[in-house]
């Protein structure tokens, strides 16, 4: 017996450890002074500080609160009346059928709900623009907007739609518990149905309504997937922002915000549970004393809390509406880029200088961006995409030609980065950053300096090597080692490169295939070698001084990320103003210092070492600067990706699947 209980306790402890250890780690590292999730460098609240001054985060907190509060309010009212409607259905089979239908959306995969809502909205917008076009054509009195886009209203509708079932689920049992005669009794005593609702039904089902609202609110705050598909470009919830932030590097700022989110949801859960237990206890007690006290209170005092509550709710709604309309009158530009890919003070500065509001969104890869654009959910003005994706977008006629007279700062861009093969006549793009791919290794964990891609395929460091988890970059390392072009379309060459990767994988060379996980693995010394981008190496170096970056002797890939404007963008002028602002020397200096990726602006590139020295009071090591902005000698060894023909892309996919990552 005793042994048994010991086992039980140990097992329980293990279960809880398993459940909560990740959250504990997350919370602990949110107080890390360094910017790593693997190396502890002291206690600090700086990430929380940074969080509250991060406009992207604060704006998304605002959006999240607004959408949660509004959708909860709407869903609570709608769900309550729906529950009453269900309850009053005469036929039990109908009632059961409806209840089941109500339960399906809750069980349904969020991704299905999200995609379905997105497609529904996009389809509706299509029909609407036809209708509005026709309607505006036959009369001039009222002009309907022809172009609707995903945005806050669709986000709100989506949240309302997935919240209603939770309210229903929580109100229905209270209705079932209620004596069916109560409503009749109230009406018998002179109430209309509406009076009976307020005086009798509402007090009876109030606990259900409140817990339904709390659940709905929690669900709204929690939701990521459905929001992701329905928020469009102009709004982004907290969860979406966090997701976008993870694209480049998982800084403890994400830990900090996740900690706060966790605490908020925890608090909501505790409140919900406390309410329930308190109600249970109360229903078992005789509450005579409480009743007498309530009786003795004057009507005014009884009414006061309600009046105050009502006023507060009204003020909140009014505030939200006012600030929402205030925003809607401002000129706007919708920008989509990678997470952690801009110094956000630039956004504020641009807004102050031009009065144009920037909706700054992020996605995590070229491929995601592409699918967002294709589905119609990505309604942006300006996007940042990599070279090969830009050429694919141009090929598919998804970009708008730029008016370079509106972008005078384009002249500051180094000639090296103009008229590149992805945009040969330079009609569509202004470069944003550029850089090289290379090998990053921990010099304390290797025998001798690494100079060749060979190390990525040999058994020498088996189990300590990290490979790209995307087909283009991974295949490129093999192609480069074999001496082929990174843009080859020769299936034999590609097959050979694939064989090299597959063999190495089979021999256990790779510890894993990674993207941003490489940060913590290399910083923490959990792996010795990995291939990644130069700018990110510089970030890692801050946390682990033993790391070395090298562009292998066989050559490498270099890349350009460029800003473009989407076809038919509604705010083209604002978009060009934004691009011009970002292309300026000052903006490039600020950005370069923040993201460690090289600027295509010649002046900025030349001025950066001096700028660094003025800012930090010490000289920038020349070798670091060369890693950031590779000199011509290195760049000559590197190749730019071009968009591959469709058949080759398919072949890539097939090979990648065969590799079985």
């Amino acid at each position, binding site marked *: 017996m005793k042994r048994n209980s010991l086992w039980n306790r140990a097992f329980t402890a293990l279960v809880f450890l398993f459940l909560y250890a990740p959250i504990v780690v997350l919370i602990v590292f949110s107080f890390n002074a360094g910017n790593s999730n693997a190396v502890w460098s002291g206690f600090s609240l700086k990430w929380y500080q940074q969080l509250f001054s991060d406009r992207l985060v604060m704006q998304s907190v605002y959006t999240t609160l607004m959408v949660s509060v509004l959708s909860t309010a709407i869903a609570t009212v709608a769900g309550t009346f729906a529950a009453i409607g269900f309850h009053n259905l005469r036929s039990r089979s109908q009632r059961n059928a409806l209840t089941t239908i109500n339960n399906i959306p809750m069980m349904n995969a969020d991704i299905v709900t999200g995609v379905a809502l997105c497609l529904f909205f996009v389809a509706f917008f299509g029909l609407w623009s036809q209708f509005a076009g026709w309607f505006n054509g036959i009369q001039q009195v009222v002009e309907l907007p022809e172009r609707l886009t995903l945005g806050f209203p669709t986000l709100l509708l989506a949240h309302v739609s997935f919240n209603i079932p939770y309210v229903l689920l929580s109100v229905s049992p209270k209705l079932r518990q209620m004596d069916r*005669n109560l409503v*009749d*009794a109230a009406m018998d005593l002179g*109430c209309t149905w509406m009076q009976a609702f307020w005086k009798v039904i509402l007090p009876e089902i109030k606990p259900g309504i409140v817990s339904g609202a709390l659940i709905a609110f929690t669900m709204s705050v929690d939701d990521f997937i459905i929001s992701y598909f329905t928020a469009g470009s102009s709004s982004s919830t907290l969860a979406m922002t966090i997701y976008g932030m993870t694209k480049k590097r998982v800084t403890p700022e994400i830990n900090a915000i996740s900690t706060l989110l966790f605490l908020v949801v925890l608090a909501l859960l505790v409140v919900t549970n406390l309410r329930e237990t308190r109600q249970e206890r109360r229903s078992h007690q005789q509450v005579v004393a409480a009743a007498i006290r309530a009786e003795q209170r004057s009507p005014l005092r009884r009414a006061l809390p309600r009046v105050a509550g009502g006023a507060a709710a009204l003020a909140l709604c009014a505030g939200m509406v006012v600030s929402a309309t205030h925003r809607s009158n401002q000129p706007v530009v919708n920008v989509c880029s990678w997470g952690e890919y801009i110094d956000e003070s630039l956004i504020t500065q641009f807004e102050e200088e031009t009065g144009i509001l920037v909706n700054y969104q992020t996605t995590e890869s070229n491929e995601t961006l592409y699918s967002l654009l294709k589905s119609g959910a990505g309604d942006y003005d300006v996007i940042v995409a990599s070279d090969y994706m830009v050429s694919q977008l141009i090929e598919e006629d998804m970009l708008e030609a730029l008016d370079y007279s509106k972008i005078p700062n384009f002249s500051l861009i180094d000639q090296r980065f103009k008229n590149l093969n992805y945009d040969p006549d330079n009609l569509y793009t202004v470069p944003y950053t550029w850089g090289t791919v290379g090998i990053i290794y921990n010099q304390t964990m290797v025998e001798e300096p690494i100079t060749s891609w060979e190390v990525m395929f040999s058994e020498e460091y088996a189990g300590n090597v990290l490979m790209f988890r995307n087909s283009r970059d991974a295949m490129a390392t093999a192609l480069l080692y074999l001496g082929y072009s990174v843009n080859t379309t020769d299936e034999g060459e590609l097959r050979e490169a694939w064989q090299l990767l597959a063999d190495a994988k089979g021999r256990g060379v790779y510890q894993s295939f990674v993207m941003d996980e490489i940060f913590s693995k290399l910083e923490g010394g959990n792996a010795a070698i990995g291939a990644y981008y130069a700018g990110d190496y510089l970030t890692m170096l801050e946390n682990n001084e033993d790391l070395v970056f090298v562009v292998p002797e066989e050559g490498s890939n270099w890349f350009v990320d460029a800003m473009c404007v989407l076809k038919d963008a509604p705010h083209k002028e604002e978009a060009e103003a934004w691009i011009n602002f970002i292309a300026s020397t000052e903006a490039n200096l600020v950005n370069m210092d923040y993201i460690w990726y090289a600027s295509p602006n010649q002046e900025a590139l030349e001025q950066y070492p001096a700028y660094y020295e003025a800012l930090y009071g010490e000289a920038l090591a020349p070798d670091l600067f060369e890693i950031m902005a590779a000199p011509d000698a290195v760049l000559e060894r590197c190749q730019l990706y071009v968009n591959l023909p469709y058949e080759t892309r398919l072949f890539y996919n097939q090979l990648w699947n065969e590799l079985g990552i």
Partner: protein
Amino acid sequence: MAKELIRLSDCVMRYEDNLVLDHINLYINDKEFLTLLGPSGCGKTTTLRIIGGFLTPTSGDIFFDGVRINDVPPNKRTINTVFQKYALFPHLNVFENVAFGLRLQKLPEKEIHTRVMEMLEAVSLRGFEHRRPEALSGGQQQRVAIARALVNRPKVLLLDEPLGALDLKLRKDMQIELKRIQQQVGITFIFVTHDQEEALSMSDTLVVMDGGRIQQIGTPEDIYNEPKNAFVADFIGESNIIDGIMVEDRVVQMYGRRFPCLDTGFAPNEAVDVVIRPEDIDIVPVEQGQITGTVTSVTFKGMQYDIIVDFRGFKWLIQTTDHSPVGARIGIKIDPDGIHVMKKSAYSGQFGDYSSFSDEYEELDNASPDGEEEGAWHEA
């Protein structure tokens, strides 16, 4: 005779294929205590809810004081209801429960207070104003429900099986209490029950219902003494119902023997049902008996014995103070006024045979009325 207050005219209630009320015609007089009595599913609650305004009949009209009120909602009718299980508002205390209707009328606070306290006094609940309903006993809740309805000074009070949830002793007390209140306030009470004893002891007028039809209307005495058909005879009290032939006026033939009776107006040699109440049968020595039979079971009931006697395969229930042992042959004698002759009806042959008699008989008969409620509530 008092004036007519409520009239149901040709009322039909139908849920899809289910005929709940089948052409009900009924008038109810002012100030009378009328009881709707019948087994589960007979339509009594549906009738009550139509009067209360919670249901609208599928066809037919309902008049109140000569005015058609089919479309008048419950809150506009000067009728109040005491619901089954009382339906007190759990979130309000006793005072506020009773004051509910008055507050809706927006009466001055002072008047509300006076009237509520008067009414609580009348139902002996003074001092309980601040209690919550859940802190009251069943009988107290019952009286709050009555006070809550009567405080509005309705012209009619509807009571839907109000005593069903109380235990036997309390039920007896409340029967007397209700009757007293009715006489005190002097308004019409319409009472629904499936308990025939309750119905007999309280009502001025009794309406016996079955299968959505009114089987008989009359005073409790009329209905007990002159049941119209086998159903009524069986449902109201105990009855032995025997096939007979009305040979001529005042002579009925059973078991091939002629019995003198008081009934007239049947065709010569018409087949009839003969009702003989168990307490109207005298046990006599075999040689003096009009017919003879064998005792098959004896149950001691306190005041009397219930004995089952086999007469040529048909078993009778006889209530007597004299003990006869099982197996004894006995003779019986029935006075002419103990015999009641009824026309044959659809119910003939279904009731009045005690072959399957047992002590549980009573309980089975009083099965819970839930079945009926299910149908009636759904419309609400």
